[in-house]
């Protein structure tokens, strides 16, 4: 349509004249409406820590965008966070989605747990509201054909593939010295799914999975698992579990002097700065393939300082949420509107580059970003380094680890 209707042209001119008279931005009348982003996180219940970290990351991003003047293409519209609490329960997550829809939310960010994300994204799908998944490992989230779901971080299929490649490379570099592995995983979606994939792919890099040990959530004592592992004498122990069990298991293995070429984890829940701070001898030399920021990026380091200045830890939940908000802001900027359909289209075609991550440019296929990737990490007594891929590495890997 090239000809503007005369009536609307007049309106445009009038509006233009009016705003010229009213002057610079900052006058209440010219302030565009804020764009509401619903944060659906488990900030109470068993997942409270992760929920709190996710919320913090999202709020940091929102504050940063607003401080820089909001969404320029929307006349400086600011982002407004609607805080939600799914209480670590799926049905409450859904209720929060409905409540925020009522409050005029333009997009959601959530949900940490896959079991909450699955029904929550479905509820949002009815309204065609874009739903950004910050954390949530299950690939079921993106495989249902829901147009409104976008997951920026790689799913566990991709993470496992990349982890296998990284492990294979590092092993080859050391002359293929590891030939066997024992897998230990927690009993729910995350652990079971990850371990299953790993067991299938390890033979491809010449490592035989001797045994896959499943443990309960929670587990109070790992002595027997440590014994079993010791009896099997594997070259590697590969773990996939949540925070508490990860730490307990790692401590037990260290205490029992289970000698392996590496204690390796894929998406290890307890591999973070807290482990290094609280149990440095246990953490030392442990390796994890996980979501991580790009240590060579100045912005990432600045964010880390910002979080640590407040006494917090720069954990993966923080920057994954941060990125989702930035991704959304970029889509808003390109669509120049918060209209749901247009934003979904903008997200689907996004090529946004998350500079703080070791990612390539964004590319969504069926809601899953294919440009994302994890990194291979190794802990020292004081810090955590990226050891692969090389272009993001901040240290060289120590493999095999020295004998206990």
């Amino acid at each position, binding site marked *: 349509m090239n000809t503007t209707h005369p009536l609307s042209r007049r309106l445009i001119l009038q509006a233009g004249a009016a705003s010229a008279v009213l002057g610079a931005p900052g006058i209440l009348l010219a302030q565009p409406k804020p764009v509401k982003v619903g944060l659906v996180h488990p900030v109470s219940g068993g997942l409270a820590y992760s929920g709190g970290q996710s919320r913090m990351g999202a709020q940091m991003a929102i504050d940063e965008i607003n401080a820089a003047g909001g969404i320029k293409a929307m006349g400086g519209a600011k982002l407004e966070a609607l805080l939600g609490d799914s209480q670590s329960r799926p049905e409450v997550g859904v209720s929060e989605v409905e409540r925020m829809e009522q409050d005029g939310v333009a997009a959601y960010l959530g949900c940490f747990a896959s079991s909450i994300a699955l029904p929550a994204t479905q509820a949002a799908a009815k309204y065609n509201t874009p739903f950004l998944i910050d954390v949530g490992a299950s690939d079921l989230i993106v495989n249902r054909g829901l147009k409104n779901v976008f997951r920026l971080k790689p799913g566990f299929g991709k993470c496992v593939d990349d982890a296998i490649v990284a492990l294979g490379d590092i092993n080859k570099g050391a002359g293929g010295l590891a030939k066997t592995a024992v897998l230990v995983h927690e009993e729910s979606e995350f652990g079971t799914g990850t371990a299953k994939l790993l067991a299938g792919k390890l033979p491809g890099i010449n490592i035989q999975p001797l045994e896959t040990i499943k443990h309960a959530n929670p587990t109070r004592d790992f002595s*027997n*698992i440590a014994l079993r592992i010791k009896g099997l004498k594997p070259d590697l122990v590969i773990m996939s579990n949540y925070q508490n069990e990860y730490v307990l298991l790692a401590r037990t293995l260290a205490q029992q002097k289970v000698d392996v070429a590496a204690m390796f984890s894929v998406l290890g829940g307890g591999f973070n700065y807290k482990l290094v701070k609280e149990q440095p001898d246990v953490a030392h030399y442990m390796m994890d393939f996980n979501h991580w920021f790009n240590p060579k990026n100045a912005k990432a380091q600045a964010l880390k300082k910002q979080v640590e200045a407040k006494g917090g830890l720069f954990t993966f939940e923080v920057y994954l949420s941060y990125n989702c908000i930035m991704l959304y802001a970029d889509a808003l900027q390109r669509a120049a509107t918060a209209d749901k359909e247009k934003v979904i289209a903008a997200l689907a075609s996004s090529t946004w580059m998350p500079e703080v991550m070791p990612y390539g440019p964004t590319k969504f296929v069926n809601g899953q970003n294919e440009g994302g990737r994890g990194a291979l990490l190794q802990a020292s007594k004081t810090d955590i380094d990226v050891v692969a891929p090389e272009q993001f590495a901040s240290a060289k890997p120590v493999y095999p680890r020295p004998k206990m």
Partner: protein
Amino acid sequence: MDANIIAAAAINGLLLGGIYTLVASGLTLIYGVLHIINFAHGSMLMLAMFGVYYLLTLLGIDPYLSMFIMVPAMFLLGYLLYKGLIGRLSSGKDENILLVTLGLSILIENLALMFFKGDSRTILVSYSDTMIEVGPAFVPLPKLISFAVAMALCAALGLFIQRTDTGRAIRAVAKERVGAQLVGIDVDRIFAISYGIGLATLGAAASLMMPIFYVSPTVGHVFVLVAFTVVVLGGMGSFLGAVVGGLIIGLTESFGGLFLGESMGQIGISLIFILILLFRPSGLFGAKT
């Protein structure tokens, strides 16, 4: 399977059982005397563990030494909680006390979340990783200490109940409340004391567990079900039962994990629970009702 592994599993099971015993001993006392299922037990343990954590990180007090602070502190907390809240709200109905302790546990857990935040914390002391050889097993020193102390405390509690006047009063109230009142025992005071002792055991348990475990607002959930199982197995109201029950459950968990896998192996605890209730509900040493 290697005999060494089985022996080691047995040792691990016993050591684990020691902790369960201590947590269960408070629960069994509270049930035995007040006839209430203390749903707040788990969250109280959590509070005590945070107490030990902060005593170490803020004041540098060794966890084992902090026991001397935590035990009386938790006793006081229990006493006051009973006098101020639980005793007042019981108005005779057991089921209501249940709801009160349930409400309390939600309250406490989330107060902890508000003030301490949701992260799990562990502590590291100089002897955290000292390993002692016990037969075919390598055992961390803290586990041995907690086993020994737990057994000693239970023995002490048992003696207290048997030999002291207060202990006798407690037994009287547990057995026959009205009769005890008739002979002049201040039943309400005994209830408060019992609840206090019940929580005091958690103070000790917390001190023993912090070097080994972790603390977070929801850590109580991890031990509650097991504690109940021990109480039922051992017999509600019996300390000897808590000791024997705790050890049996520890062994069951250990061997269950060894033979069925650590996920399915948890079923051993629930199955024992069910079997005991079906065939010997008073438990091993409980009073036959």
